[in-house]
């Protein structure tokens, strides 16, 4: 009897027997059984093997038993064999020397009478994945491919692929791809054919980077003879293999329309398949085949609608979600087709929130004249939902529908009812919506103002809602009896107002009110401007100053700036560009659809070309999407902020100081007769920034206005001989390529000023700083204390590019820099420039 095993820290749970003594005990027992031929040996072996494998499964390292296990493997019992194969497969990679011992019995088993054993042995042999054993694989694989049993052939085909991954040259030298091709076109068994297809696709894709022939072969797979060959056998394939074939067909370009119809007729019954994966793969084929034929494409939507809806309602929750994501994409592309099926998108009480969000978006999209009433009624019921985010989302959905419909009578009533519901979040959301609605339908102002006027500003806490309320107070101050006094009391509480957005709106609203009702507002205006000028927030300060000077300069000009005649906003900017949607559509039936972004936005290194830092890039993008899952509007924005791909362009367009998204729609068109007053104010404000009062936010605007401040600042005390192009552009792909190709020309360590370290709390500050020195950031990541940045810069008047990897450790205040350059000779000069730029970071 073994003593009670001591607790090992490897054991995941105390109840599991574990530890060294257990393993050595097993070792002993295995040894005793190894040579025994007594009857019943197999049974005791089986028990022992089970113990070993259960230990392995729990996570205990039993690799020390390798030798004994191999010794015991001489048996005719197939279960024992299987367990042994499993064990060997798991540990061969870490014990390459011992793995050699197993080759012998595996090779023998590959010649067994029983096809099952031949197959299993071959599979295990290929799963050893030990590079120096590949020579032993070729023989058994070759005979496996010629085996008269289809099971063995199936295994052998996948074996070839495994071999390719261990040693590509061995696989190619043995001419296995050619054999597979022959099998693919001639084998009776469709599983063998399907495996050949998947193996060849993988091998040829990987080979095609080096071999033209492989690339040609891969292209050939999409050619007519191949596609027809597979299509003709489609019904014989297993459901999974059918998915594979469909993928292939979706890439096939038919020569004429009759071909398209033939294919669709052939595949139509696949839409009725019980397996959702097949249905979706078929859907993809249909959609892609008919892209060029608008009317047929339309009919395809009609045809696929019912099967997809059935899948959604009859599958397990997981399946429903995957289908629903795809349906979401289709609904967004062609809402009118689904407008009569809106009831399918009604939310069920116990559905998870991510499903509800998808459904809410779809409901919003399919709303039209005929169904708006029902949809809005339904959405209003969700507003009383226990799940607050969903309640908010549904109120927003009502608002969106109101903004896209012509007949908004009923909806406005509903929204106003929300305002009376006395629920904080409901009121907040409704206020924001009423504001948007008024911008589009000024004719509703009478009704809305009556209700809004009853809302006490004390009851509204959320900044966005408060800003909306203040905007309405300013805009409709002539209709709201006590607007000036409400504003006045808000100004009195200036210091308690934490949101800069609200304070900005308050300034503007008081200004507007002043021009409409001067005597009543004068006091409030004075107080607001004074408070604004003393405000610590740069934007608020600047806007107050701007208003102040404007008033000093000329009151009537000020009025025309703050209170111009307004046009109703007809279209609010779409949040997700149609280009992105198209890209996602091209990737139908893939993860892209679930994530609602094209794969280039989220797939990792292996599939976009490798680079050392792509790990961090991957992390960044993933962090962005794990948090919240679905709303595209937010996601795209987050994406922009977090992905940090091409920060250069983004920063040019985005005013870093403005955090309100309500007005970002029509702004920055720059022309004077702007639609609303707000953008104008923003623009005007930015020009004050550009005069040098606000260095940080101003810099981004410099580019916007085409003013070239950056070069000036870059060439401070002792102007280095090297000047950089302030508007250098490089896309991430080229960066990666260059980084791989170029040697490191300089590697240095600088120290950073403590002020710089302190400012590094937000890495973005450094990015903007370096940008002002004409050094652009292409990617950044990391967490305190270690940050990693990739920069690039371009010589002025020359195409020569510098690439920099900069690792900053904030605790040691050191930065390690690696520079790669097209022009090696000037890299020292660039390094000096980079160092001087970096050392100035954080200095006032």
């Amino acid at each position: 009897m073994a003593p009670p095993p001591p607790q090992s820290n490897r054991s995941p749970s105390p109840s599991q027997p574990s530890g060294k003594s257990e393993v050595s005990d097993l070792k002993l027992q295995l040894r005793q059984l190894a040579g025994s031929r007594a009857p019943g040996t197999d049974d005791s072996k089986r028990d022992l093997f089970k113990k070993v494998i259960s230990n392995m499964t729990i996570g205990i390292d039993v690799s020390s038993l390798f030798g004994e296990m191999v010794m015991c493997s001489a048996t005719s019992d197939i279960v024992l064999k299987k367990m042994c194969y499993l064990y060997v497969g798991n540990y061969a990679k870490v014990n390459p020397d011992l793995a050699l011992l197993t080759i012998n019995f595996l090779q023998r088993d590959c010649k067994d009478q029983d096809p099952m054993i031949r197959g299993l042995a071959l599979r295990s042999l290929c799963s050893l994945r030990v590079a120096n054993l590949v020579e032993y694989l070729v023989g058994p694989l070759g005979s496996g491919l010629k085996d008269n049993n289809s099971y063995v052939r199936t295994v052998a085909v996948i074996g070839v692929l495994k071999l390719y991954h261990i040693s590509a040259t061995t696989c190619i030298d043995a001419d296995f791809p050619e054999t597979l091709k022959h099998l693919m076109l001639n084998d009776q068994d469709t599983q063998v054919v399907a495996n050949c297809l998947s193996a060849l696709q993988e091998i040829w894709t990987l080979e095609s980077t080096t071999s033209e022939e492989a690339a040609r072969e891969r292209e050939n797979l999409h050619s007519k003879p191949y596609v027809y060959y597979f299509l003709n056998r489609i019904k014989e394939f297993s459901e999974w293999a059918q998915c594979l074939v469909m993928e292939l067909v979706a890439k096939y370009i038919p020569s004429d329309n009759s071909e398209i119809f033939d294919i669709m007729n052939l595949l139509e019954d696949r839409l009725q398949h019980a397996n959702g994966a097949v249905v979706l793969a078929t859907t993809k084929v249909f959609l892609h085949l008919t892209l060029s034929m608008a009317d047929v494409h339309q009919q395809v939507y009609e045809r696929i609608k019912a099967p997809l809806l059935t899948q959604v309602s009859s599958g397990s929750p997981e399946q429903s979600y995957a289908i629903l994501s795809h349906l979401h994409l289709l609904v967004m592309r062609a809402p009118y087709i689904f407008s009569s099926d809106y009831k399918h998108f009604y939310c069920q009480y116990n559905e998870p929130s991510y499903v509800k969000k998808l459904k809410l978006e779809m409901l919003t999209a399919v709303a039209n004249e005929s169904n708006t009433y029902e949809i809005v009624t339904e959405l209003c019921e969700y507003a009383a939902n226990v799940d607050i985010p969903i309640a908010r989302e549904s109120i927003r959905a009502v608002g969106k529908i109101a903004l896209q419909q012509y007949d908004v009578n009923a909806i406005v009533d509903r929204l106003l009812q929300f305002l009376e519901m006395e629920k904080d979040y409901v009121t907040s959301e409704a206020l924001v919506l009423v504001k948007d609605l008024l911008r589009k339908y000024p004719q509703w102002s009478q009704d809305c103002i009556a209700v809004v006027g009853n809302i006490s500003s004390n009851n509204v806490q959320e900044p966005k809602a408060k800003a909306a309320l203040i905007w309405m107070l300013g805009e409709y101050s002539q209709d709201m009896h006590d607007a000036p006094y409400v504003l006045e009391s808000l100004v009195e509480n200036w210091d308690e107002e934490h949101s800069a957005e609200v304070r900005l709106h308050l300034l503007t609203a008081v200004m507007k009110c002043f021009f409409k009702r001067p005597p009543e507002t004068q006091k409030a205006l004075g107080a607001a401007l004074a408070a604004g000028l003393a405000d610590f927030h740069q934007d608020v300060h600047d806007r107050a100053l701007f208003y102040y000077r404007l008033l000093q300069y000329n009151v009537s000009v000020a009025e025309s700036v703050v209170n111009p005649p307004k046009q109703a906003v007809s279209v609010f900017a779409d949040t997700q560009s149609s280009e992105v949607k198209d890209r996602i559509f091209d990737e139908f039936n893939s993860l892209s659809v679930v994530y609602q972004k094209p794969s280039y936005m989220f797939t990792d290194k292996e599939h976009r070309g490798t680079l050392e830092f792509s790990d961090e890039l991957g992390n960044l993008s993933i962090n962005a999407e794990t948090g919240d899952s679905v709303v595209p509007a937010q996601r795209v924005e987050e994406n922009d902020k977090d992905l940090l791909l091409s920060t250069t362009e983004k920063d040019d367009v985005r005013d870093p100081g403005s955090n309100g998204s309500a007005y970002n729609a029509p702004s920055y068109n720059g022309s004077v007769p702007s639609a609303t007053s707000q953008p104008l104010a923003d623009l005007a404000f930015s020009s004050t920034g550009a005069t040098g009062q606000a260095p940080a936010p101003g810099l981004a605007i410099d580019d916007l206005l085409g003013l070239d401040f950056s070069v000036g600042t870059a060439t401070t005390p002792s102007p280095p001989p090297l000047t950089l192009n302030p508007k250098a552009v490089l896309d991430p792909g080229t960066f990666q390529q260059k980084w791989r190709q170029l040697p490191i020309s300089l590697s240095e360590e600088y120290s950073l000023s403590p002020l710089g370290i302190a400012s590094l709390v937000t890495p973005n500050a450094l990015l903007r700083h370096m940008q002002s020195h004409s050094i652009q950031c292409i990617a950044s990541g990391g967490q305190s204390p270690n940050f990693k940045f990739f920069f690039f810069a371009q010589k002025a008047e020359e195409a020569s590019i510098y690439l920099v990897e900069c690792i900053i450790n904030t605790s040691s205040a050191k930065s390690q820099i690696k520079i790669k350059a097209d022009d090696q000779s000037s890299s020292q000069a660039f390094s000096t420039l980079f160092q001087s730029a970096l050392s100035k970071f954080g200095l006032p």
Partner: protein
Amino acid sequence: MLQCIFLLSDSGEVILEKQLTGHRVDRSICNWFWDHTNSQPNSYKQQPVIASPTHYLFQVCREGITFLACTQVEMPPLMAIEFLCRVADVINGYLGGLNEDSIKDNFVIVYELLDEMIDNGFPLTTEPNILQEMIAPPNIVSKVLSVVTGNSSNVSDTLPGSTASCVPWRTADPKYANNEVYVDLVEQMDATINRDGVLVKCEINGEVQVNSHITGLPDLTLSFANPSILDDVRFHPCVRFRPWESNQILSFVPPDGQFKLMNYRVRKLKSTPIYVKPQLTSDGGICRLNVMVGMRNDPGKTVDSVNVQFQLPPCILSADLTSTHGTVNILSNKTCTWSIGRIPKDKAPSMSGTLVLETGLERLHVFPTFQVDFRIMGVALSGLQIDKLDLKTVPYRFYKGFRALTRAGEFEVRS
């Protein structure tokens, strides 16, 4: 292409790990997954597709067991999910129920199954009939057999004949003393009744379940009296498409044993068999609740297992509810269940009582949704009727049995 499959227990422990490709996925991904899921709000816990820093994860949860698959490459998400569902079904069928202990006791079988179901990340054989020929299930029969014959191997000696046959879902040549086919119509009614008592949505998702034990290679045809009511259908791979398309006849060679022949959907039903009428009136911090349940259109059979469940809003401090029929239970998480059982013929059951709102709240703003459960034996509420079932090609007499059952699916009443 999947790279790895893990089975996790309800405490996040790895029960089983199956590496599929040369790229070894480290177990630590499970810890990441577990921490991630637990940090999510409740309604996000079961999100089927998750991006981890290194892999994309697919999860399917069944009876507390999480089936987790990892991949790094782009692939059809539904394929992964469908496959995991299939794995769960097959293991469930083999072990007669899913739980941590049964998987641990039979992990060799689970490994064997996974080995045959997926190779190098690509799904292979997932048909239960075929798998059973390759790997014998650990049932009592095989245990008895192994004791009697002394052969305790649970792997059959021969390869399944049908891997090469043209009917890949069917065992080659089963033999039965009694040939019988049972056809069940199992329907689920999904309905939503809104605050005003209007039936906003009502549809039925039905399944035709067949249990067939017939010697040889039978060719069956099944027809309905009123196939036109079906809005959409999907079939088991064994169903031939053409006869359905032209004559709405199901013609098929069935797999052996129990299987799902067809799913269908019937939309736009006009009424529900029972009504549930909740009434809430609140004033001065007290809310009065009254719920009535009764038969609306008598389906001709008894409605039983009637159950009304709802979640009290978080703003409710305490509840005092009594019913005229059945029992009311309020759990600590504010889930309230009213089990009625069979609705009595003479009097409609009702539940009433008061809810005390949290202090400072005058009226209720968030209203509960009532989820209703019921079961009716012997009726398919969609009205679908089986016309006849014929057996071709095999000259046996066989026993046919038909049954029907309707239960509530997502049946909810808002208040």
